[in-house]
């Protein structure tokens, strides 16, 4: 992998940056320092030498002047004195006065053994333009050395300072030139790459680390660019095929792209059909002669191999293959053949085959790309197959639905008809009941009227038996009338023909209205009716006055009917939060357990009620229940009454019955 290459590769660099740096320093600094030292030493020497030679010339000329005569006429003593004096100068090591024949005349004491490092000054002595001798003075150069040592410190200091300054300068110049400049270039290139310009390359930056870095950078960018190109290609191809759901279209796309983008000269796709049949489904770029020579079967053979091994099959050298095969392929100019199986997990969908004339085509990374593409393609193909299936299914489903809908529509039609019939029927039923009740009522009017009159002794008094019989007729007439009324009510409620006209009602007032209607029976039976005053004034309750009257009337009628004479009925109102509870409690015999579950059923009457000839139709509670529920309330019964003491009744008294119904406050 390219990355590893970069990491593991140790650069073989001839001149490292450090080397270059030191070399540059040496080249510049050492000669410079040498030069400076040389110049300084030379300067110092010059100065000292000048100084000394000047002095020595003075001495010599003085001595020469003095000794002109002295040498000739020789006042040696005086000369000696002068020589002595001069040699007092600590720089003077030795003075020698010689005549023309170089014979020493006068000399001073030698201050040193040898004068190797001494400066020798010779001054000729002339007397009247005639040379009379020579003065030789040896000067000590120790002063020069001294001067030098004191100077060298300064020089060194100077050199160091200069060196540092130079170093800085050199570093600046060198790094500017050698490093920053180039790093800048590298950075610029990196930034460009970062921005996505993968065509960026860094020019050759020399032979050092930076050069290497640049080289690596270029290599890397090239790699990335290649990868990117491959990915883009893969992406493009994948996108192209993913967008298609139709298998034929997908294959067209793939075949086209294989030729166009993957540098294939020919290609084909093989798919495993539903029945397991492996078959070519499409091809591009194959010559007719190849096809005619049964080349397809050959391709299929190779493709099948790839499918068998579950891995890409890349064949480059056909010369090694069996004769017939190679001959045909060489004739078709196929130099490289790639067969890539299309797999999803273990499922083998088919094979993508691409061939090229170019023997260099399909290097490993291309094959890798092809494999990636093949994975995508497999998914897409599977999706397409699924889609095809789904479409098939949905088509079938649609047909089924259509059939079902047709059936449904017909069924609906029938239902509608039936419903219409039912509506008609129910209309007919309530019409029927209305008509029947009318038809029954009219004759009952005269029956009730006449029996009423007869029982009252109109037009003449009846004997006891006649009166008894007449009373039975009268009573049963009333029962018949009740039955008709209740039946009519019930059928109207059930047909939804009763609409509640809700108004805010004062329950106590409605109750007193009902009690007023019942006052005759109440006094007749000597009953005690108690309306318990509510703990707090009752809120108005939205209810239909007529229907509420019907409910109360039935409950109170029942209580009155089913309790013995002198019994007691209590009416109690309770505020129960969202509801008002209305209770009708009596201290009669109550309702037997076996009757309790049924008393709200229509036409249900207890055996006891029937046996005791209490008049009733068995519809009152059924109607009451419907009406209460239409108001959004509930109705229930309790017998025996559990809290008799509240009504001041003895626990051992008759069981009693407590009917409770609720009405919502809003």
């Amino acid at each position: 992998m390219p990355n590893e290459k970069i990491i593991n590769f140790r650069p073989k660099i001839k001149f490292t940056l450090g080397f270059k740096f030191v070399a540059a320093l040496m080249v510049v600094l050492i000669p410079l320092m040498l030069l400076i030292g040389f110049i300084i030493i030379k300067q110092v020497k010059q100065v000292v030498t000048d100084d000394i030679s000047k002095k020595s010339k003075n001495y010599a000329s003085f001595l020469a002047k003095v000794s002109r005569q002295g040498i000739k006429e020789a006042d040696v003593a005086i000369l000696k004195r002068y020589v002595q004096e001069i040699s007092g100068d600590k720089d003077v090591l030795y003075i020698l006065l010689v005549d023309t024949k170089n014979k020493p005349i006068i000399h001073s004491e030698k201050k040193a053994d040898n004068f190797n490092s001494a400066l020798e000054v010779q001054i000729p002595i002339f007397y009247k333009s005639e040379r009379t001798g020579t003065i030789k003075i040896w000067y000590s150069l120790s002063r020069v050395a001294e001067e030098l040592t004191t100077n060298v410190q300064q020089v060194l200091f100077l050199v160091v300072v200069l060196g540092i300054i130079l170093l800085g300068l050199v570093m600046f110049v060198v790094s500017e030139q050698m490093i920053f400049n180039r790093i800048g270039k590298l950075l610029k290139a990196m930034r460009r790459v970062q921005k996505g310009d993968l065509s960026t390359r860094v020019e050759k930056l020399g032979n050092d680390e930076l050069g290497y870095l640049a080289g690596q950078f270029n290599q890397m960018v090239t790699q990335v660019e290649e990868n990117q190109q491959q990915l883009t290609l893969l992406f493009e191809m994948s996108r192209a095929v993913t967008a298609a759901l139709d298998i034929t279209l997908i294959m067209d796309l793939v075949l086209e792209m294989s030729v166009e983008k993957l540098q294939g000269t020919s290609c084909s796709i093989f798919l495993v059909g539903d029945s397991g049949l492996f078959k070519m489904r499409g091809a591009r770029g194959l010559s007719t002669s190849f096809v005619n020579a049964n080349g397809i079967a050959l391709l299929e053979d190779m493709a099948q191999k790839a499918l068998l091994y579950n891995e890409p099959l890349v064949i480059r050298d056909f010369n090694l293959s069996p004769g017939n095969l190679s001959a045909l392929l060489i004739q078709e100019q196929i130099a490289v053949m790639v067969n890539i199986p299309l797999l999803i997990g273990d499922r083998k969908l088919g094979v993508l085959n691409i061939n090229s004339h170019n023997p260099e085509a399909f290097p490993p990374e291309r094959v890798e790309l092809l494999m990636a593409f093949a994975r995508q393609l497999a998914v897409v193909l599977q999706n397409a197959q699924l889609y095809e299936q789904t479409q098939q299914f949905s088509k079938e489903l649609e047909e089924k639905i259509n059939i079902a809908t047709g059936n449904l529509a017909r069924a609906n039609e029938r239902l509608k008809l039936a419903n219409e019939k039912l509506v008609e029927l129910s209309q007919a039923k309530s019409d029927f009941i209305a008509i029947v009740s009318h038809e029954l009522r009219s004759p009952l009017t005269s029956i009730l009227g006449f029996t009423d009159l007869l029982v009252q002794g109109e037009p003449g008094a009846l004997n006891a038996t006649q009166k008894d019989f007449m009373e039975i007729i009268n009573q049963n007439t009333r029962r018949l009338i009740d039955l008709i009324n209740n039946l009519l009510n019930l059928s109207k409620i059930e047909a939804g023909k009763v609409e509640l006209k809700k108004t805010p009602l004062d329950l106590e007032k409605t109750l007193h209205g009902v009690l007023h209607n019942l006052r005759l029976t109440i006094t007749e039976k000597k009953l005690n009716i108690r309306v318990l005053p509510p703990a707090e004034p009752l809120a108005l309750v939205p209810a239909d006055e007529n229907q509420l009257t019907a409910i109360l009337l039935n409950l109170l009628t029942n209580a009155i009917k089913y309790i013995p004479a002198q019994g007691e009925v209590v009416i109690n109102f309770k505020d129960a939060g969202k509801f008002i509870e209305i209770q009708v409690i009596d201290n009669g015999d109550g309702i037997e357990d076996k009757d309790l579950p049924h008393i709200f059923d229509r036409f249900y009457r207890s055996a006891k009620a029937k046996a005791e000839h209490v008049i009733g139709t068995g519809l009152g509670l059924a109607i009451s229940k419907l009406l209460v529920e239409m108001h959004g309330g509930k109705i229930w019964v309790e017998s025996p009454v559990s809290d008799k003491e509240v009504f001041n009744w003895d626990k051992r008294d008759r069981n009693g019955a407590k009917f409770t119904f609720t009405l919502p406050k809003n």
Partner: protein
Amino acid sequence: MSKKVLIVDDEPGVVKMVKYLLEKNSFAVVSANEGEEGVKLAIQEKPDLILMDIMMPLIDGNEATRRLKENEVTKQIPVIMLSALGQEGDVAKSLELGAMDYIVKPFHPQELMDRVKKILG
């Protein structure tokens, strides 16, 4: 002079029963057994009160009442409906047409007489 009451009802039993009741209470009674005849009789007899059934052949009690109320001669005569139709709507409809009262059949004779006397004093 005794007050005159017109009974319009197609049910002979009812007519007979009501007639007996009224005559016993000293009212003069005329009767018709269908609507058209009832209207004719009302114009002719100018009764003090009309007791009108609703469900009758040909024209019904409501239609008869409407005609009576449109006629200058009869429109002041109070009408009490005597009907087997006992639903609220029925009652309201008749009262709207100008009936003064509405008694649902079957009724107790006493109830009828109470209502009649209330109107005729």
